């Protein structure tokens, strides 16, 4: 029974990682940019909701609905102001740009909010702590909500990419931006839209983060590493792969913790390294992922 419980916890945790990883995967899939500020952008989402909840009597879920459009705009502006220019200078420059952005965000957050940690746990009532008993297992309600949100977001993203005009344009631009321009697609606006979607979903992940655990200005990089590992395990650029990668990472960490509580993070890293070292890892690197 313990191990069944471990597997369930691992899958639920995987839902959270998938949510964090989704935007990272989308940005790489569409424009080959690895956004090193993704974790910090998620933490910005967490802080924004925390500020609204603390300054007003607005409940966290309404605050989240207010914050997500802000994240969208932030993503759009970030592409136009920063990434557009750096992308033109080659593959490596956006990596440096987002690295710099990550440092700026962390220090601005430190300046405004101090290094104290915060959490939304206390303001979400019983939701974050309640659980459902199923056949002797105790399953966290919030964990299930996180996984369900991840599945809905990833399904939505998949449907958006395969069914809508904007989604088709995004896939076409991802495959060949020059030709996309020649069939009337404004590649710049497609890229900005992809960044906006990625940052919005990242912000959503940050809000879930803020409810599951405490966060402070330096939380971002750790979350980035987990998200990055989930993306690599699942294969860059595919929404379903991202969900799978998140779940594999979650399972590895929970199984590690079961073996020895200290092995929680270690087992996740080992699975990540194993995937990179496997023949499939080589394929990932060569293909560079497709949508």
């Amino acid at each position: 029974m313990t191990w069944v419980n471990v597997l369930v916890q691992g899958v639920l945790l995987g839902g959270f990682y998938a949510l964090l990883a989704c935007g990272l995967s989308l940005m790489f899939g569409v424009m080959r940019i690895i956004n090193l500020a993704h974790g910090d952008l998620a933490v910005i989402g967490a802080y924004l909701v925390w500020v609204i909840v603390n300054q007003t009597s607005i409940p966290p879920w309404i605050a989240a609905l207010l914050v997500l459009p802000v994240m969208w705009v932030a993503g759009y502006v970030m592409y136009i102001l920063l990434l557009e220019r750096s992308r033109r200078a080659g593959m490596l420059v956006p990596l440096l740009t987002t690295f710099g952005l990550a440092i700026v965000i962390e220090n601005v957050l430190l300046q405004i909010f101090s290094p104290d940690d915060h959490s939304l746990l206390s303001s979400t009532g019983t939701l974050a702590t309640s659980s459902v008993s199923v056949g002797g297992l105790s399953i966290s309600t919030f964990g299930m909500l996180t996984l369900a949100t991840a599945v809905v977001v990833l399904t939505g993203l998949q449907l958006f990419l395969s069914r809508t005009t904007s989604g088709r344009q995004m896939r076409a631009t991802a495959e060949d931006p020059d030709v996309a321009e020649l069939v009337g697609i404004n590649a710049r606006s497609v890229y900005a839209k992809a960044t906006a979607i990625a940052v919005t979903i990242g912000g959503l992940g940050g809000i879930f983060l803020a409810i599951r655990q405490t966060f402070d200005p330096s939380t971002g990089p750790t979350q980035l590493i987990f998200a990055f590992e989930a993306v690599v395990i699942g294969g860059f650029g595919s929404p379903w792969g991202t969900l799978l990668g998140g779940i594999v990472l979650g399972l590895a960490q929970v199984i590690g913790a079961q073996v020895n509580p200290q092995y929680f993070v270690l087992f996740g890293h080992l699975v990540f390294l194993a995937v990179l070292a496997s023949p499939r890892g080589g394929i990932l690197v060569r293909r560079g992922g497709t949508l």
Partner: protein
Amino acid sequence: MSLLEVRAIDAKYGLLQAVRSVSLTIEEGETHALIGANGAGKTTLLRVIAGAHRPAAGTVAFDGVDITRIPAHKRVSLGIALVPEGRRLFPGLSVEENLKVAAGRRGDAAWTVDRVLEIFPMLQSRRTQSASTLSGGEQQATAIGRALMCNPRLLLLDEVSLGLAPKAVAAVYESLRGLIGSGTTVVLVEQDLGRALAVASRVTCMLHGAVVLEGAAATLTRAEITAAYFGVRSSPAVRADS
């Protein structure tokens, strides 16, 4: 007023000058063949017209409007569509998606997926297949269809027969003949002189980035074209008759 007026275009790739002061006028409804050896600057000229390559000097006017500074995706909505060299389909998208992605959001378009499939019946059974699984001829048909979905007033075709089996070339040209008959203005780059002269009403021959011969297809002799094509003459001659 001419549909397209290219004036004194210079185009460069770094230090290499691919197009040297080329001027070209295309009238509405004509089929204009752009011929010349490899490296003559034909593809670059088409890319300049489509907006995919920014010229170093000169202007491009479409329908009387200077479009030199207008980006490629906006030229598409003005009515310029390029079928790029090597077809360049979106390999991960299906045939239908390749066509639809070019239609944008306009609902009133003359060209629809069904109409494209009508003129390229070979694509009918491939509709939901990914573009990477198509044969060369089918890919070329999809690439032309994709350009047509932009509802062009000016269709630029770059080496549509390149790398295709003779049978596939014949099929593609058969469909093109229908398009040309329907009044679409076409500029085509073609290595195969016979094919080019058979469909074109006017011919421009380029050599080393410059225009060396221009005239109505019917009035130019094979010898004149061959001489211009290989640069046999010492002084470039431009025939301005029509």
